[in-house]
């Protein structure tokens, strides 16, 4: 059970949060112009890294804000947390 430092509320127990999958996958601005393969890439393809991964999290039972997390999936170490729209920290 992680201890997550919500950028709006502070440290809270993991059970207040929901993981939202890989971060920094932007919804295409002009979907109609994409081929089936390009759209499928956006829609379905996600990395599943053993190691440092960029993820979206939501403080569902708190401020309901989405934010990003850099987590090492091999040992669950949370390396960084930053707000939506902010640049990801360089590794």
């Amino acid at each position, binding site marked *: *059970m*992680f*201890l997550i430092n919500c950028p709006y509320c502070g440290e809270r*127990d993991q059970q207040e949060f*929901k993981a*939202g999958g890989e971060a920094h996958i*932007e*919804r*295409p601005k*002009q*979907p*109609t112009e*994409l081929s*089936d393969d390009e*759209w*499928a890439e956006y*829609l379905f393809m996600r990395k599943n890294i053993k190691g440092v991964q960029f993820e*979206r999290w*939501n403080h*569902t039972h708190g401020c*309901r*804000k*989405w934010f990003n997390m850099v987590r090492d999936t091999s*040992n*669950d*170490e949370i390396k960084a947390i930053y707000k*939506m*729209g902010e640049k990801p920290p360089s590794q």
Partner: protein
Amino acid sequence: MNKNLRVKSSEYIDETNRISFKFNDRTYHGFKGDTLASALLANNVHLVGRSFKYHRPRGIMTSGSEEPNAIVQVNPGTNRTEPNVRATEVEIYEGLEASSQNCWPSVEFDIGGINNFLSPFFPAGFYYKTFMWPASFWEKYEFFIRHSAGLGKSPTSSDPDIYDHQNVHCDVLVVGAGISGILTAKNAAKNNFKTLLVDEKNELGGSTIFENNEFNKIDNKTPSEWLKQEIKELKDIKNLEIKTRTSVAAYHQYNYLLARENLTDHLEAKDKTNKIRQRLLKIRAKKVILATGALERPLIFNNNDRPGIMLSSAIKKYSEFYGVACGSKNIFFTNNDSAYESALSLYNKGINVEAIIDIREQSESKIVKKVKEVGIKVYWSHTIVDTAGYKRLNGISIMKLSNDGTSVTGSKISISCDCLGVAGGWTPAVHLYTQSGSKLKFDEEKQIFLPNQNTSEQISVGSCGGDFKIDEIIKNLNQKLKDNLNIKETDLDNIKVEIDQENSKRNIWLLPSDKPLGKTKPFVDYQNDATAKDIKLALREGFRSIEHVKRYTTTGMGTDQGKLGNMHALGIIADTAGVKMGELGTTTFRPPYTPLTFGTIVGRNVGKFFDIFRRTPMNDWHVENKAEFENVGQWKRAWYYPINGETMHQAVQRESKAARESAGILDASTLGKIDIQGSDASEFLNRVYTNAWSKLAIGKCRYGLMLNEDGMVYDDGVTTRLGENHYIMTTTTGGAANVLGKLEDYLQTEWPELDVYLTSVTDHYATASLCGPNSKKILKKIIPDLDLSDESFPHMSFKEANIGHIQCRIMRISFTGEHSYEINVQASYGKDLWEKCMKAGQEFNITPYGTETMHLLRAEKGFIIVGQDTDGTMTPIDLQMDWIVSKKKYDFIGKRSLYRSDTMREDRKQLVGLLTEDPNVVLEEGAQIVSELNQNPVEMLGHVTSSYFSPNLKKSIALAVVRGGKDMMGKKLFVPMENKNINVTVANPVFYDAKNERLNA
């Protein structure tokens, strides 16, 4: 059997408080402070259980939570009964009853004991090998396997006890209150760390509390005397909380630990009632200091499992702590000096020690010399090759060990005895350490796994960190505390320690016998009857990974998780396969450390608190009017309102007719409601719904369909424009929270530039849906001054009005196809609104209807229910709802996916209506649909999603999804059931009033 084995009184046993208890229906006596194990031993009862596979007689082996054999059923036959409880952990109380497990008819005479003589036929992997063939026999095998599986019996009636959960936060959590834990807790608390000290036992002090080795001194006192003084001082320390009878079950990442605090298990039945039995502590600690100590290992030799064979340290604890002699002719068998401490401890209490068998060539420590001086015979370089006695040990045979330790030589010596203490060295209790994700390293010199890489804020101190001697413990503990807690000075700086140096150890994982291995039974895992033979067999059969060998042989898979024998299993594998133990690694230690009750895990979340539920403001009226309820998400919704003993079918038929013929009323308060405001609200709705919203006039309502980005229908509902920049969206009852979450996700992450604010107002409004040809008249009676003409208040429009002083929002929308109104008021007025409607509707025979009638009425109209007629694989096109998908809008969530090659296939499953040939036959929801009856295997075209008998059409109707169904209008299909095939015809899903004339009736 009734011999009293109490020796010199112990300060932990209150001999003035005599307690009677029953074991296997026989009454025994013990004293306050005894465990079930110590009390049984005092009554000379060693035989307490039968092993799992061979049903061999087994006795008490240990004095703690690592016990593999003495697991009993506590209070059998009562609603408080608990299986698989370690007798070594049960504190006795007046009236306690316990019984042996895994034996029939009794532990003394167990039919299953035949398995012991058939053991050559039960090798490792017996079940895997035997029950594989023939496949058709599996059903017969399963019956027998199920009967022989499992140990104790679970209770058959509900648990009368109360359980609790508590969140605990501390700076320092110290696990284990032995000498290391106590010194750590004391120094942490004194330095202003908020400290919690927990221990699974009822007394503090660990094993040092009965450590009376005269050659070890702390500040010139025996370790026991010195530690008792330290414990006394704990009382006056601030910042320190101590919890005994508290076992840490799990250690998760980020220093999150779960511990079970036992509050009433040691109390008499009359003192248990109305008290919390066990509490699950959910601990978040800034630092965790593990002081979990070490477990003594047994030695692995032929027939090492007989009742009377115990750990040497346990024998010492029973004599020093509980004042109980485990036998009257004791022998110790050892590879290190600790058995000599036990022997001397017995000798000092006047208990007879016959001999010590030592596999080492010699030892020169002071305690060994002392043992020799008092006249106890020591057999150096000897090993036990066999033991005798079926239900109680009565003798051993020993032989001289060869130099390399792999065989025995010389002649056999037999010695009679009734108790054998085995001492195979100490294994650090690193279970919690590894649960936290931290990594171990094998120490070749000490032959143990030790903490190596910590992944969280933690340290291991004392013997669980590899320090076994008191001088090492104190020195290293002192340094670790200074380094990790930033303490400058500690109590430990000036402690003077004298110890007796142990100078030799000898580790032989599997001791040889004069018989070949195949003819011996050297048990490694006592509870699961896994022997060294089984491990070697697994290796011969090609298993290499320790995890595979574990599962194949079941070594370490009992309720004790192999706390005693796992190291031997590793050692035997390493020796046999010729690899180093460090390379082999260990199996994974998983939580819980000791078993937890289900009660502790669920805490208060039982019965009506199992899951939270929500009730509408009208709930009391539904209850008073005998509604039956159904669960919809967390909501309790009125399902139907039976009158005069009606069945559900009869009630629903009556309600459905009434709603179409005169007037019906439905509690629709559970629908999700989201208030949407902001200057970009219209644009936002354009993006999230499939249809266009920009041109919706203020005061108008529109039905919307929401997709996932994959093009599949996600939710639906009516949204009303309340103002220029203000909408109220309704969602399905079950989807409300998810829809809000999804909309927030897009707003915050994809379209942060939009000026839109979302607020859930589901609980703020109560909604009564008034429907039927007389609904207009009823509303007119309630709000006489409201213009209800079709010109002023047409279908799909909205008005604000007052009923007396109650403000309400009224939408003229319909989910039944009838003329109807949804009246929304502030939640607290919900019941009042409902009663007003009922009163005004009385002359029109207004009929309250529940969710079942609502489902029937909408099915007559072919309206879908998301989640019933859709399942996450249906596009709006599949639902034949092309009309709601805007062709003009450039984009909306899911639009692009509607043009993927897969979603454009013609042969996708599509929503159609089904009519049965016999109008009285109602299809089963979920039934499969086929076009051919004689095909094998038959091709399944789809399934029935909704099915009812329509009282208004007087025939059976159904909605279904059928592959390519759109082009099958009028086609005859079949619904094959268990006993018959039902003939059906594909039809238009709108069965009733296809021209929507009734909306304005």
